[in-house]
């Protein structure tokens, strides 16, 4: 993990370094320098607010009792190449290290679940409360098209690819009851303080992809205010994982600031 952190930091510095070169370049150059000429460099930081959510919510979920986005920090860098002379259209590629996480408590009814211990499975229907904690550290590469709608406002849209290098998905069930097997099975009550924990971290997928879209507002000459929505297109779990019967998609709003060189 540390290696990856170092890699990200060096990547950011490389981009900053590129920018130094860029600044020294005059207009109307050809070749590499000419290509670099139409580039914008940005370093940014922000926070992710969102969660891994089933879409649409299955009928088994009766109530979301609590939700906390947790503090999900993100740092990154983006390079934008303007295509036209007016710098209205462009393409961006970025690299960011980010945390996606959430903590929820939900009330479910007749929710198909399995408690797995060392490969032995106890399946049943759970009615009651479920606490879930999702925490994933990822390296994300967004590739987006950029449109300047206003001298100070840019809109971007495009796909992203994420590699998760640290994944946690765990929680516990409480205040409810399990019907062993099916709804006619023996009822086992979890009352008071009693909890049964689960941990599906090993079943989270490492690669995710999705779409990202958002706006970037140039508040001051160098200061950007960014808001991007990232919408995961694949289930956060590997396809062989059947315990959670519905797909969970990571959907996050990233809000932060950028420094434009």
């Amino acid at each position, binding site marked *: 993990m540390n290696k990856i952190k170092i890699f990200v930091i060096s990547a950011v510095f490389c981009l900053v370094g590129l920018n130094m070169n860029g600044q020294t370049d005059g207009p109307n150059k050809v070749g590499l320098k000419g290509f670099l000429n139409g580039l914008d460099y940005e370093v940014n930081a922000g926070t992710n607010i969102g969660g891994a*959510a089933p*879409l*649409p*919510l*299955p*009928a088994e*979920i*009766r*109530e*979301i009792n609590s939700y906390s986005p947790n503090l999900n920090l993100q740092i990154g860098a983006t390079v934008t190449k303007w295509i036209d002379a007016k710098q209205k259209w462009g393409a961006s590629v970025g690299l960011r290290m980010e945390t996606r996480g959430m903590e929820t408590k939900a009330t479910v*009814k*007749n929710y198909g679940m399995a*408690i*797995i*211990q*060392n*490969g*032995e499975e*106890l399946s049943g*229907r759970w009615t009651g409360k479920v606490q879930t904690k999702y925490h994933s550290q990822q390296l994300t590469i967004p590739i987006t098209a950029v449109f300047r*709608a*206003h001298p*100070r*406002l840019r*809109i971007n849209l495009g796909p992203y690819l994420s590699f998760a290098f640290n994944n946690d998905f765990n929680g*516990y069930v409480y205040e409810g009851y399990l*019907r062993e097997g*099916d*709804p*006619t*099975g*023996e*009822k*086992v*009550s*979890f*009352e*008071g*303080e*009693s*909890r*049964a*924990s689960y941990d599906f971290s090993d079943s989270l997928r490492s690669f995710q992809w999705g779409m990202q879209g958002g*706006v970037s*507002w140039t508040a001051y000459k160098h200061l950007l205010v960014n*808001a991007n*929505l990232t919408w995961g297109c694949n289930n956060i779990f590997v396809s062989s994982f059947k315990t959670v019967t519905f797909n969970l998609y990571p*959907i996050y*709003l990233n809000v932060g600031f950028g420094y434009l060189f």
Partner: protein
Amino acid sequence: MVLYDKASAVRLALLVVLTLFATSCIKDEEPNTECDILSIIFPSDILLRQPYISDKPEKMGSGESEKVYYSIEVMVKAGVDVTKLAPEFTLTPGATISPESGVERDFTSPQEYVTTSQDGKWHRTYVVTVKKEEPPVELQFIKYGFENVKTESKFNRQYDVFYEVDADDSEKVTMTWDSGNSGFAWSLIGSTVGGSPDVFPTFQADNGVVGKCAELITRETGPMGSSFSPPMPIAAGNLFTGKFVLNLGNPRKSTHFGEGILFRHVPLYFSGYFKYTPGEVYKAINENNQFVAVPGKTDECNIYSVLYEVTDDMPYLDGDNVLSDDNPNIIAVAAISAEDRKGSPQWKEFRVPFQLRAGKTIDPDKLESGAYSLTIVMTSSKDGDYFAGAIGSCLLVDELEITCN
């Protein structure tokens, strides 16, 4: 220009929020899938005890005609005409029952009911057995020899269930003991421990004083036991008259001591044989929910019997109140001595009198009307109900006897 762009940004944001909202609404609740009989209602003046509705699947028939059912036991007073009873039921909301609530049936033999869930997809078969109170017979003692067991299965693991038979008719089951074995089966999920009865805390063993005996061992629970919070690291061997209904939130409420037992004699002495070796390291759960050794402490067993009055607010005793000094329902207690609780490497006989609690008497009228129940409780770790004890503590019990007046 600036205004326009602000507006479009707001529009975009709104679009995003609306999309999220539209796809994330809580859906309408689906019809219930459960089909439980929650209660069975008879005129209260005919009942001797609250009916007992079992949630434990049982099997009848064999081969293709095998089916799962759930039993309901009803104890009615002497003189009640069981040929014409019309029980009413309360069910899981939306569920239906056939024959319907209030239909008169002949309960001379057990009667079957089938429930259907609100969504129509699930069914449960219940068998209602009405037991008529038999007039009390003169008897000097009641003996328990632990010669009979049947095996029950849970999560592909088998455990022993002790039962007693009529002295004159070995086919007639007079009483079934219960234990925490079915709860222990839960804790074994994912364990590499096998599934035979002798890995459970309570099972039948050879080499009793006469024939076979009951063996109770304090066991370490499996992976599930420790994954619970608060943890349930051990399960003491236990055996008692009554019912075990697993309650994970409050394990001491799982043991329904004396439930379904009718006692109509004046108990004088509680006697029997036992052999006890405490396990090596006594452990308990500390304030940080860790199961740690308690230096200087040695495990103890316990064997006792309690005569108590059944009331509407206390239809049975449980782990929280079975020995409580301030429990108003307790009439008399017979327990082995503090010295005996520490153990005996050889079989040892005990004989202890039932001692009336201060201010309590055995009312002949209540005895006659069936208001009393008696429970016998044994455990290999006295504090096992608080998950304190020594793994490996082993108690053997045989030839228990209640001497009556």
